[in-house]
């Protein structure tokens, strides 16, 4: 069965989706990613969906779930590179992914994760 590669970069995990997503693949990604976060103790997850033409309600919800799960495992999730047509479709479907942080491209997404981590690390620990 095909899988989506999860790459480790410093304390972040980088997921670049370059194939058409179907439901099984999305569920597999969810399993892989949660496992990798807990093994590698990553603090940030960056999901690049710039190659995705179509995002249906299931994939949209799975992205939201991944973000929520990563949050529980203390990692920040940023979804980057969503296409205008995909954004419009998700909004029309009523899925505005409230818990997911977004950025325009990988560079801005990485900056967002680093600034979020910086704020957390800079704060005196309780």
């Amino acid at each position, binding site marked *: 069965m095909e899988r989506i590669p999860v790459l480790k970069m410093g304390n972040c995990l980088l997921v670049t989706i370059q194939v058409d997503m179907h439901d099984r693949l999305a569920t597999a990604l969810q399993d892989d990613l949660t496992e990798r976060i807990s093994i590698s103790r990553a603090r940030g997850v960056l999901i690049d969906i710039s190659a995705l033409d179509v995002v249906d309600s299931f994939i949209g919800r799975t992205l939201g779930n991944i973000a929520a799960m990563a949050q529980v495992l203390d990692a920040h999730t940023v*979804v*980057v*590179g*969503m*296409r*205008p047509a*995909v*954004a*419009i479709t*998700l*909004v*029309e479907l009523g899925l*505005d*992914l409230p818990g997911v942080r*977004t*950025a*325009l*491209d990988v560079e*801005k*997404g990485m900056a967002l994760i680093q600034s979020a981590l910086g704020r957390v690390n800079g704060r005196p620990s309780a």
Partner: protein
Amino acid sequence: MDTPQRTRIPEIVAKYETELLSEWIELQTRAATLRRDLMRDDDLRDESQRFLEQFRIGTSKGSLDPDDDSWHGARDVLAEITRQRARLGFSPSATATFVFSLKQPLFTRLQIEIGDDTRVLADEIWRATILLDQLGLFSIEVHQKGREELIARQQQEMLELSTPVVQLWEGVVALPLIGTLDSARTQVVMESLLQTIVDTGASIAIIDITGVPTVDTLVAQHLLKTVAAARLMGAECLISGIRPQIAQTIVHLGVELNDIVTKASLADALTIALDKLGLHVSSRDAR
């Protein structure tokens, strides 16, 4: 009841075509609805002549129903004349009067020809009335359709004109909305905003609603959708240009604009945007 075959209308129209034409034109020239400022007498004569000729051809085939194939020519001429008049600015009633005014000369001729047989005369007048009424209604429909096409074209033009997205600063784009937001426009606005965000790499978008006359729940919903879509792309939206009445309406309608930064003026929104980007504008003297 007489059968349509025995009507004498075709015969009478053919016999008195010239007289009918001159009387009809005379009548139209005297009518108050004729717009002398919009058309010349020559055009009126020409149009009347062409229509009456087709009218005679239509009746000569034996059918008095304008929907029949034999009336094809008459319908075409009438549609052409109507469209021409609609373009010139004639009202629908003025256009329909063109057909209806043919009644009087035609009835006069029927009366002269048929004479004292009132039963036959009543039948013939009834047939002629139905025929001319149908032609008149047809001309009103064509007029109406022409107007609707005009409105549709203008709407399309408005849609294309009214959605500029401007870059205010590196990373800041603004969308000055003017006019009412309906579903079709929101779609166009949303698409052009999102495309500009991709093209310019902007992280902040300011939607300025100074030019939106009213905000109802539907417009607010469309705004919220646009904001949500921009957020999914990774850009933050600010809404500016909220006038006092609009602020009141939004609260009265119970529209929730939570999590969205709203400002009274575009200048305030730009200040916020620059601040979020870590930029700062200062007076030269202060250095």
